């Protein structure tokens, strides 16, 4: 098990604007400037952190992944995509509680644009934190091939399975808690798993399986490498 506090995340205001929809069109200077201001504030406050656990003794069966004495009902789609997995990484990544409090304060001030920008910064921050986690575990488990990341709530893996995933983590992992409805708090948090194994081949991204793919901005961003 390893917990990492992120020291450096390189986020640019233009990247945030891309995530707000400005894919090819340049954002209005007013929006870009406000994004820059809020991003600077956020980066001084936020303490993103991730934690991961490498689990061995993985058994895949139909719609379930067994790890040690735990069973995850990941659903048939994800279990199929994990084919060949012998080692499993379970992870949690978060923009952190300090960021959550900052975002709450922005929200209280009642400006819709500021709130939207702050929310997008949070999404980008936790996204970057998750990417750093993924790079770290890939480096650590190299040269084992790996799957993409999968999270409860996507591709048929029921969100209620968050409880099982968090049960495999140390208590209070990254200061992220689960609400009764399995919502992670701080809200800007991501959890999930990545499969590793000599025989792992399938690298389908969960975006490509999502039924919202036609309208999803995140998918468009990924396709454009933005």
């Amino acid at each position, binding site marked *: 098990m390893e917990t990492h506090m992120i020291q450096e995340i390189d986020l640019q205001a233009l990247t945030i*604007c891309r995530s*707000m*929809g*400005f894919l090819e*069109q340049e*954002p*209005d200077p*007013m*929006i870009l400037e406000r994004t820059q201001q809020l991003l600077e504030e956020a980066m001084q406050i936020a303490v993103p952190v991730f934690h991961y656990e490498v689990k061995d003794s993985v058994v895949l069966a139909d719609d379930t992944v067994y790890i040690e004495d735990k069973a995850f009902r990941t659903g048939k789609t994800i279990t199929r995509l994990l084919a060949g997995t012998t080692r499993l990484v379970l992870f949690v990544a978060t923009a952190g509680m300090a960021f959550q409090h900052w975002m709450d304060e922005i*929200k209280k001030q009642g*400006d*819709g*644009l500021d*709130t*939207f*920008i702050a*929310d997008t910064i949070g999404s980008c921050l936790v996204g970057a934190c998750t990417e750093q986690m993924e790079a770290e575990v890939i480096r650590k488990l190299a040269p084992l091939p790996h799957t993409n990341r999968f999270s409860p*709530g996507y591709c048929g893996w*029921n*969100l*209620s399975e968050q409880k099982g995933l968090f049960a495999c983590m140390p208590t209070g992992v990254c200061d992220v808690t689960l*609400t*009764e*409805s*399995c*919502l992670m*708090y701080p*809200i800007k948090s991501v959890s999930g798993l990545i499969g590793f194994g000599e025989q792992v081949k399938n690298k389908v991204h969960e975006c490509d399986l999502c*039924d*919202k793919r036609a*309208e999803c901005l995140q998918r468009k961003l990924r396709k454009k490498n933005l």
Partner: protein
Amino acid sequence: MANLQDLYNAILNGKLEQAVAVTQEAINEGISPTEIINQYMVKAMEEIGARFEAGKAFVPNLLLAARAMKGSLELLKPLMRDKNTATIGKVVIGTVKGDLHDIGKNLVASMFEGCGFEVINLGVDVSSTKFIEAAKEHHADIICMSALLTTTMMYMEKVVQAVEAEGLRDQVKIMVGGAPVNNAFAQKIGADAYTSNANQAVQVAKQLLAAS
């Protein structure tokens, strides 16, 4: 003399201060609020909505336009009350119980306000009781519910059932939205409509009210 085309442009481009200044000038000159709103402000919001649908404007543009529109409407509202020109409709909106996500819901609320609806924003983690109390208290035309989780979207059905049990179903339309929600789900739980973005929500709300 107030140049109302400047008001149109100010709202379209999200310039709050300019929109408020031109609106005040127009009020001082005795131009009717109905003319200011219908001929310029609503048209600017329609244009930004159309640009959004065409992929030429984005959520921040909508929010800026809605903010400018709201600023101007604040000046006009007292005059509208005197002349008994009511809002387009009253919307009670909230993120359902168990869910704390509100960015999309607040965007929809801003667009509703910007487009002349009266909005009662109940926040997040809203129970069916709160939705019903607010709908009764404010004589709402529409209840709008949002959820971002597959676990919490199921609560929307409870709200629909509670609205029916209270005998309000004929008086209030129900709209739903949020990432895991779709049209089939909306139909299944007995909602009147699902929309996938803030601009559509306003358009569909207008259609629902016009048809009722």
